[in-house]
């Protein structure tokens, strides 16, 4: 990382804690144009770097594996997975919840931080939103293919039919269909809408007719008219206001799949907040995992600054603690409720056949984030990166523990079982990462990965010298250059 020559790169560290000065959100000698160049430069690269090709090749081949597995699954039967009678939901659902969880950071960063006027979001929100979409795409695959008869899965939709049958709206699974569907749609709209002005920038810089044509279409003829900006701002605000409860609802509804059932270890009122916290947690972890290499590779250190990463690690620390609290609350309630089945379910998690998974979960999700109390670690990219990966591992295991360990031992000891994933389970999961990375790579190569318009809006140059004219007294910090202060 940029620790090679401290002298030259010290300016990159804007993680000051000095309360008298607001730290700048963008560092370096940047003006609007340089920002445009930096971001559009990635899209306009004359030739794609070989590293990208290598990564892309790997991802695409993994995607191939994913679809091969899906074909095998659909032609042969769900039996190719490790599922069985007590544990009728396995990796497919675990992966679904895992990906949906990751799909939360984007909308959260865009929407909630927007409403909270967290201006530092601007550098990373586009990136995170993109990640959201791709994660939701991966998530969406699993409930789709995990049903026994994919070819009639459309019965989930309330379509008038010759059977005059309708879906059962009492089922959490159906709520899920609507929640995830809505979430995917809204995230996509949000993402695209924010991108329109930036697409216009690329269009206006286009040198080839093709590029101009494509981005021209995509940017819908945006001419950055302020009369448009006015409504754009309002629409964006509204979308943010809508997406915020949505993002909270989605994982709540996902958690209903479990909470509404009667299985000990599932039937818990704590699930919605617990799942949402977990989702944010894993979402941010995934953003960090992706953003650290990307910003290095495309030299975006000045735009996606160390301070951004530090803030995210703080959020991870906070949400990690929430998740930890949820774990302990579960145990307390299991004991306090006096319900012997509930009590056993949790003892069994911690000390039963699946104890190994449980303790991986606890150490990754609760212990690892504790290092973020120390600023040295928050700002050390290597540590941060590894931690973020561990957190993702932990969050996957959280879902595994919830789904599998609860199901494997419920009420009647006669029907207890032990679930083992099949190789197909594993390949499918790995494949889904391939799909995710493929989409992500295409995104960083062909779309503006930083919201230029928004970043410019929070740059020092964007704020008025004329105090009288200052709309509202928001101060975007001073320009930090390599020489230091201006």
């Amino acid at each position, binding site marked *: 990382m940029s620790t090679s020559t401290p002298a030259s790169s010290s300016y990159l560290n804007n993680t000051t804690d000095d309360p008298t000065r607001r730290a700048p959100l963008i560092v370096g000698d940047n003006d609007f*144009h340089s920002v445009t160049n930096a971001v559009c430069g990635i899209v306009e690269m004359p030739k794609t770097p070989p590293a990208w090709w290598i990564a892309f090749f790997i991802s695409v081949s993994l995607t191939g594996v994913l679809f091969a597995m899906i074909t095998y699954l659909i032609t042969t039967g769900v039996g190719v997975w490790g599922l069985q009678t007590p544990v009728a939901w396995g990796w497919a659902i675990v992966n679904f919840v895992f990906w949906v969880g990751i799909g939360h950071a984007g909308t959260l960063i865009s929407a909630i931080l927007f409403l909270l006027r967290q201006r530092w979001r601007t550098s990373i929100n586009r990136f995170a939103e993109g990640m959201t979409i791709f994660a939701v795409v991966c998530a969406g695959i699993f409930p789709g293919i995990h049903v026994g008869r994919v070819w009639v899965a459309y019965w989930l939709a309330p379509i008038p039919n010759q059977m005059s049958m309708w879906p059962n709206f009492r089922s959490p699974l159906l709520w899920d269909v609507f929640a995830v569907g809505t979430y995917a749609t809204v995230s996509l709209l949000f993402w695209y809408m924010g991108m329109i002005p930036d697409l216009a920038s690329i269009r206006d810089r286009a040198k080839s007719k093709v590029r101009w044509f494509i981005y021209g279409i995509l940017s819908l003829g945006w001419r950055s008219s302020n009369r448009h900006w006015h409504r754009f701002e309002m629409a964006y605000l509204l979308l943010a206001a809508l997406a915020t409860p949505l993002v909270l609802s989605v994982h709540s509804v996902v958690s209903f799949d479990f909470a509404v059932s009667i299985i000990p270890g599932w039937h818990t009122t704590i699930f919605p907040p617990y799942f949402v916290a977990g989702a944010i947690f894993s979402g941010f972890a995934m953003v960090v995992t992706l953003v650290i290499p990307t910003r290095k590779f495309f030299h975006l250190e000045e735009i996606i600054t160390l301070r951004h990463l530090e803030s995210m690690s703080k959020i991870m620390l906070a949400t990690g603690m929430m998740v930890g609290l949820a774990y302990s609350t579960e145990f307390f309630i299991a004991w306090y409720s006096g319900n012997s089945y509930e009590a056993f379910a949790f003892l069994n998690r911690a000390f039963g056949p699946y104890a190994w998974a449980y303790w991986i979960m606890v150490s990754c999700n609760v212990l690892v984030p504790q290092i973020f109390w120390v600023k040295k670690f928050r700002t050390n990219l290597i540590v941060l990166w590894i931690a973020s990966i561990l957190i993702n591992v932990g969050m996957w295991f959280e879902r595994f523990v919830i789904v599998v360990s609860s199901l494997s031992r419920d009420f009647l000891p006669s029907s207890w079982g032990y679930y083992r994933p099949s190789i197909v389970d594993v390949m499918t999961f790995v494949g889904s990462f391939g799909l995710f990375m493929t989409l992500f790579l295409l995104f960083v190569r062909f779309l503006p990965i930083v919201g230029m318009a928004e970043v410019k809006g929070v740059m020092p140059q964007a704020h008025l010298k004329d105090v009288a004219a200052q709309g509202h007294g928001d101060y975007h910090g001073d320009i930090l250059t390599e020489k230091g202060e201006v």
Partner: protein
Amino acid sequence: MTEDKSNDIFTFPKWTWVLRPGVAVAAVGGLVYASVVIYLGFSPKATDVGYMPTQPVPYSHALHVGQLGMDCRYCHTGVEQTARATIPPTQTCMNCHSKVRANSEKLIPVRESYATGMPVPWIRVHDLPDYVYFDHSAHVRRGVGCVSCHGRIDTMEVVFQAEPLSMGWCLECHRSPEKHLRPAEFVTKLDWVPEEDQLALGSRLRETNNINPPTDCNTCHR
């Protein structure tokens, strides 16, 4: 700091204004169109009604039932006792045709069958999915006329499927049977029409015979 020195400014032609209304129309219209096509195209009304396979023997219900006035039950003996109406054995045909039209070549397959004991391979016209369990006796005994499901067989030269026989179609009658109930003696009278209003009659029969067809799944699916 690169500066755009190129003189060519690309612009879209003026006609592209149509895109705006175009997109709107396409979005709305396409949706409507698709749903209509699917609804009409996939409904059994379109796919199943009118199925008229050619049978090994050109047996005419129009002739036997319509003109000669034979009762359905003469051939379909099981219809009042069992789930199946039962297709008659060749024996039944020969009861008459050993004398009547004994030499008609249309009847060759029948005579062959009778001689060899090999059956006549009729083609099934009214074919419910195999997970549907329909019981003729249960319906006929309650006064549901043959015509309600099979149409005017007595006018058919070649039998064809007159009703969709879809689940929704079954449910209509199970929900309001009065539309189809008739006195037991007229069950096989395909051309019978009630003197009074069908609904009045139907409701009365439903009342007296205590007919409440269930709409439970396992009424038909086992």
